[in-house]
């Protein structure tokens, strides 16, 4: 079969010719960077293709689909992690390759065109990185890319037009993702492939450049091939190690345009980020576009530089980038506000991923937080209760305060002034109760007895004393406490007052005979308005106030 194929394609002779390509000066470890880069690009292509099987580029599905592949899909975290660490690896290898080419003098005549092609390839690698980390539509990608596209908009003459074309309009949305996705998965890979082919073709035309003139050369196979493949294995091993150590690439909380997120770019853009701090206001475009353009121009002109001068230039650029990164790191380490924001963002990311396991609502993105029972019950409170009750500072004061409702402190204050505005003062009919007369220990005992109706840890002796005071003060003229009888003038039956069942019953129908009967002013929240789960959650939220932490 192979012979048949060989007769028709000549693949084996092509391989033999490739293997016999002479390596001037003999096989060297310094020649492995190009091969390692090629393999990393291949890994990116393969992992990118795999991820594309599960990724959906829209503002409602991007984060949810990435969270799904990260959490649910077998080894999704590993594949995504490899794609992310592969991006970093490409940047590292590009820098090493650039440095090697300069030190070895491979940028000079007759290899100038290949040097320029290499610069284009480097720019493409950064373009890949920039378009890639928006795609998960998480906080980091969203905010960091906002900065990048804003800076792009400052390009003279065509800036605004270019920004709107690339981000698919004036604002970030579905078209931003489809545009970035098309760039990242079609245009950039296609362009990079073409440039890599020409780059390799020219490399083979001119051959590798030995550090020193040496007479001996070796064929590529097997000595250089072994070095290349060993370097590739090391690269892959580092990528696996990095992913296994961190359990994949981080995924932050869904993009939230309303949040105050302190954005930081990926590490390879941090030098540029730091540079902008030194170009405030109108000077910003000099830092954002001028400095990178200047660096690009110097690198373009490098074939006119001597090896020593060229190496000094490249080392200055790389050293400058490293220095700026260190400064950025130092600034963040000293910035307490940033560290607090970072901790908050990490907690949000963790919670969002946990909630995504329940499925993300069709609204996508931040709607995942609707799965949070705490958030859901707060929303129920805001839509159903906050028009009349105040809880934790939210709501209007028309009916009794629910912050700390029926805690000992609440009951004590309430018994002293039941008609205060924060209790029943603003209701229409529920004004019959007078402030109680007992004070001090007697008031505490009465409070303990009422509190005990809702269960929980109580002082039994105090409860017993409270019951005698309850009878002595004729509280039972209006209130019952047997769980059966209707009170007078809407005075609720106090049996079980404060238990979840009692609160749920009150929410469902405050006009029931054991609650406020015909004095009730609270709407009835039947099954058509609140589900059993929502009522139970509201009851838990209100009851939680009885025992403040």
């Amino acid at each position, binding site marked *: 079969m192979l012979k048949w194929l060989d007769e028709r394609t000549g693949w084996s002779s092509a391989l033999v010719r490739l293997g016999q390509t002479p390596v001037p000066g003999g096989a060297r470890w310094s020649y492995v960077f190009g091969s390692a880069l090629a393999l990393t690009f291949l890994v990116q292509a393969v992992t990118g293709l795999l991820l594309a*099987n599960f990724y959906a580029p829209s503002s409602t599905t991007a984060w949810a689909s990435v969270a799904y592949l990260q959490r649910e899909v077998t080894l999704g975290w590993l594949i995504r992690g490899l794609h992310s660490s592969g991006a970093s690896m490409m940047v590292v290898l590009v820098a090493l390759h650039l440095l090697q080419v300069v030190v070895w003098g491979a940028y000079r005549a007759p290899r100038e065109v290949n040097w320029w092609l290499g610069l284009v390839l480097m720019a493409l690698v950064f373009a890949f990185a920039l378009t890639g980390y928006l795609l998960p539509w998480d906080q980091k990608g969203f905010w960091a890319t906002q900065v990048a596209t804003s800076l792009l908009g400052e390009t003279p003459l065509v800036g605004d037009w270019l920004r709107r074309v690339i981000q698919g309009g004036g604002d970030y949305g579905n078209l931003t993702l489809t545009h970035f996705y098309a760039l990242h998965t079609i245009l950039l890979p296609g362009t990079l492939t073409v440039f890599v082919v020409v780059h390799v073709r020219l490399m083979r035309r001119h051959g590798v450049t030995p550090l020193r003139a040496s007479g001996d050369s070796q064929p590529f196979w097997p000595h250089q091939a072994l070095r290349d493949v060993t370097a590739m294995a090391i690269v892959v091993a580092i990528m*696996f190690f990095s992913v296994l150590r961190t359990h994949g690439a981080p995924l932050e909380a869904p993009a939230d345009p309303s949040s105050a997120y302190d954005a930081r770019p990926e590490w390879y853009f941090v030098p540029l980020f730091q540079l902008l701090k030194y170009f405030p206001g109108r000077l910003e475009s000099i830092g954002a576009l001028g400095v990178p353009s200047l660096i690009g121009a110097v690198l373009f002109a490098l074939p006119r530089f001597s090896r020593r001068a060229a190496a000094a230039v490249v080392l200055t650029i790389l050293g400058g980038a490293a220095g700026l990164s260190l400064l950025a790191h130092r600034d963040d380490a000293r910035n307490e506000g940033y560290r607090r924001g970072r901790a908050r963002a990490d907690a949000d990311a963790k919670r969002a991923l946990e909630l995504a396991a329940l499925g*993300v609502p069709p609204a996508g993105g931040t709607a995942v937080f609707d799965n949070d029972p705490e958030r859901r019950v707060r929303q129920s409170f805001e839509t159903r209760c906050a028009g009349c009750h105040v809880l934790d500072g939210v709501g209007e004061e028309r009916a009794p305060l629910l912050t700390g409702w029926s805690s000992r402190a609440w009951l004590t204050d309430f018994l002293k002034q039941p008609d205060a505005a924060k209790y029943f003062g603003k209701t229409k009919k529920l004004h019959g109760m007078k402030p109680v007369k007992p004070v001090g220990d007697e008031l505490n005992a009465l409070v303990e007895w009422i509190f005990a109706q809702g269960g929980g840890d109580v002082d039994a002796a105090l409860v017993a004393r409270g019951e005698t005071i309850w009878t002595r003060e004729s509280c039972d003229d209006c209130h019952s406490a047997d769980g059966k009888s209707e009170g007078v003038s809407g005075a609720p039956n106090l049996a079980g007052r404060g238990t979840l069942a009692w609160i749920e019953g009150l929410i469902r129908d405050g006009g029931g005979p054991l609650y406020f009967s015909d004095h009730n002013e609270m709407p009835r929240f039947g099954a058509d308005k609140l589900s059993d789960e929502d009522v139970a959650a509201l009851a838990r939220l209100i009851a939680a106030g009885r025992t403040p932490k």
Partner: protein
Amino acid sequence: MTRRRLLGALVGAVATAIGVALAVPAMAFLSYPARRRTVYGGGEPIDVASLASLPDGKPVRIVVTAPERRDAWTRFTHVTLGGCWLVRDGGDVRALSTVCPHAGCAVDWDAPTGAFVCPCHDSRFSTTGERLSGPSPRPMDALAVELHGGRVRVAWQRFKTASVKKEPV
């Protein structure tokens, strides 16, 4: 073995190791949908009609809507699962999927002939779902029905088409 062949074998071994290290997780990742359900929920009996609203012996087409359904990462609510024909027979109700067992077209009711007809390939079925004629390999797919407090509940399910055996998808 010559040194050259040994080095060549070493290159092959390292390259194979790289390939395997990448291919194994890639295959595990890609084959996830073959091993796990990615769309689920809504298989439980769903309230579709009141018994009183169904005329005796005359099929009524009903849309079955699930209160909740997971489709990969999205949790949808009020999702249309599909249609079914309800045929009341006194105090009993039969539910037949509208999906033709032949090629999956939507089976319709032909009132003049008193039979179910698939518009694609003319398979015909009786009101009980039995195949009368045409290429369908089996009768119409009956769905589980529950009667509860005068309400009709149907457990909607999709079955493999073009198969003699009635097997859930």
